[in-house]
């Protein structure tokens, strides 16, 4: 597929064109307020680090009402839950970062797994065309390369945009992306060599990546029983910040709320850091202390998900948890410790 180029002064027209008949979503706001929201072409900026918390909110809001029922027996279907319907709007998101797009593609395989499809996620995820923005200059928290990604990675994207010498370069990834660009009346350009050299430079700028591959080769139980989990967990407050801001964390809680007329069933973000998350009705808790809960988070991301998703990790190196963890539990150091084989003899 050919690449396209959009000159700087034509960016607005391009955005106008791709958002025709669709909602335009793009990162807005600065610093801790930066979040992907509905916007107009003139407000779109390329000058941002990344959204403060992950853009999973687009497809998996913090609170989502799933269904409702009413209690009046004179009306149809009393006490029977009715689907509140799919609220998905056709949209295009411009400026999602490759690490986040990849993270969401990992969650997508959980929400659309081998047996079930989550209609609430699917509706939203699949009605949004994803135009990613490559990261020319990495930020200090970035480690996508070490996690097997790239600042120019295309996983989970329909189109990859990147700053080119002549303006904004656009590389279609999927058929849907190609169609979007073809309809936008753009200038074709061969940018493949520029793209390649840019990507190489950006990867190099992240420094020599840590090697986490030993985790893939270590036995599950060998990793699980490693005594160092205790010392990793010692710092942890079990606050769960890391899970809430993470692009691949997808766990949720289902809650019912009712009043005298009826009620709704909703789902809310939940976190494996909470003891309530796993406690049985009998009071038995399979993950009773923070050591088990911390282990669960890292094992899930770095071992369980790769086992289930052909080696793709549940961490894409966006670095949010590195920055926001109040006690500096750095997933990079944890992954390195998990990669250290001499802690215990190999299983």
């Amino acid at each position, binding site marked *: 597929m050919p690449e396209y180029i959009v000159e700087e002064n034509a960016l607005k027209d391009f955005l106008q064109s791709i958002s025709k008949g669709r909602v335009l979503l793009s990162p807005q706001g600065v610093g801790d307020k930066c979040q992907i929201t509905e916007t107009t072409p003139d407000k779109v900026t390329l000058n941002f680090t990344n959204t403060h918390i992950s853009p999973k909110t687009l497809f998996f809001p913090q609170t989502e*009402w799933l269904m*409702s*029922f*009413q209690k009046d027996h004179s*009306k*149809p*279907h009393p006490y029977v839950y*009715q689907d*509140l*319907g799919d609220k998905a709007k056709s949209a295009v998101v411009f400026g999602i970062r490759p690490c986040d797009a990849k993270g969401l593609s990992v969650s997508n395989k959980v929400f659309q797994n081998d047996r079930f499809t989550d209609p609430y996620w699917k509706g939203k995820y699949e009605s949004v065309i994803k135009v990613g923005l490559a990261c020319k200059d990495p930020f200090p928290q970035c480690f996508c390369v070490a996690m097997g990604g790239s600042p120019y990675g295309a996983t989970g994207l329909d189109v990859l945009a990147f700053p080119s010498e002549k303006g904004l370069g656009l590389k279609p990834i999927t058929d849907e992306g190609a169609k979007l660009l073809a309809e936008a009346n753009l200038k074709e350009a061969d940018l493949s060599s520029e793209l390649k050299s840019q990507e190489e430079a950006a990867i190099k700028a992240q420094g020599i990546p840590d090697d986490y591959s030993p985790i893939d080769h270590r036995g599950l139980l060998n990793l699980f029983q490693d005594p160092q989990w205790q010392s990793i967990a010692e710092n942890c407050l079990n606050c769960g910040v890391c899970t809430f801001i993470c692009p691949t964390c997808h766990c949720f809680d289902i809650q019912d*709320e*009712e*009043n005298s*007329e*009826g*009620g*709704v069933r909703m789902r809310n973000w939940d976190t494996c850091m909470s003891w309530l998350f796993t406690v049985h009705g009998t009071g038995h808790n399979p993950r009773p202390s923070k050591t088990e809960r911390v282990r669960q988070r890292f094992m899930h991301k770095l071992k369980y998900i790769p086992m289930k998703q052909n080696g793709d990790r549940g961490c894409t190196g966006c670095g949010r948890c590195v920055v926001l963890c109040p006690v500096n539990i750095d997933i990079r150091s944890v992954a390195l410790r998990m990669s250290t084989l001499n802690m215990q003899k190999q299983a």
Partner: protein
Amino acid sequence: MSEFEPKIVAFFCNWCTYGAADLAGVSRLEYPPNFRVVRLPCTGRLNPKFILEAFKRGADGVWVSGCHPGDCHYIAGNYYARRKFIVMHYMLDSIGLEADRLRFSWISSAEATKFQHMATDVVEHVRACGPNLKFRKAPLILGMEEVA
């Protein structure tokens, strides 16, 4: 349009105000019927979350009443309660709850007339505040219109 009738959740101490309400009834003293009474063993048992829960579920006002200081059935329960009330009162006032929606009082079991007057007063003040729209949970939208 009929006048707004406020819904008020009342937390009464079993040993005093609850008795005063009883006595007022037996004495045929008329007072407004806008209360849903929760009986407490002592105002010391009042947890702030009770008050917030009442407002959250749509109460227009909350009234907490117990024994006069020094008269606690459990010696000192209401002394501790008083300090809690002070903190609670300033907190709720500071975050913008209208002062008239939350009432604290001391009414002994003999003070049926004080109870009657206080009940009327509480209702009138809450009525003047109007319905509680801001300090309650958002209504559940059941979406039944489309479904039905």
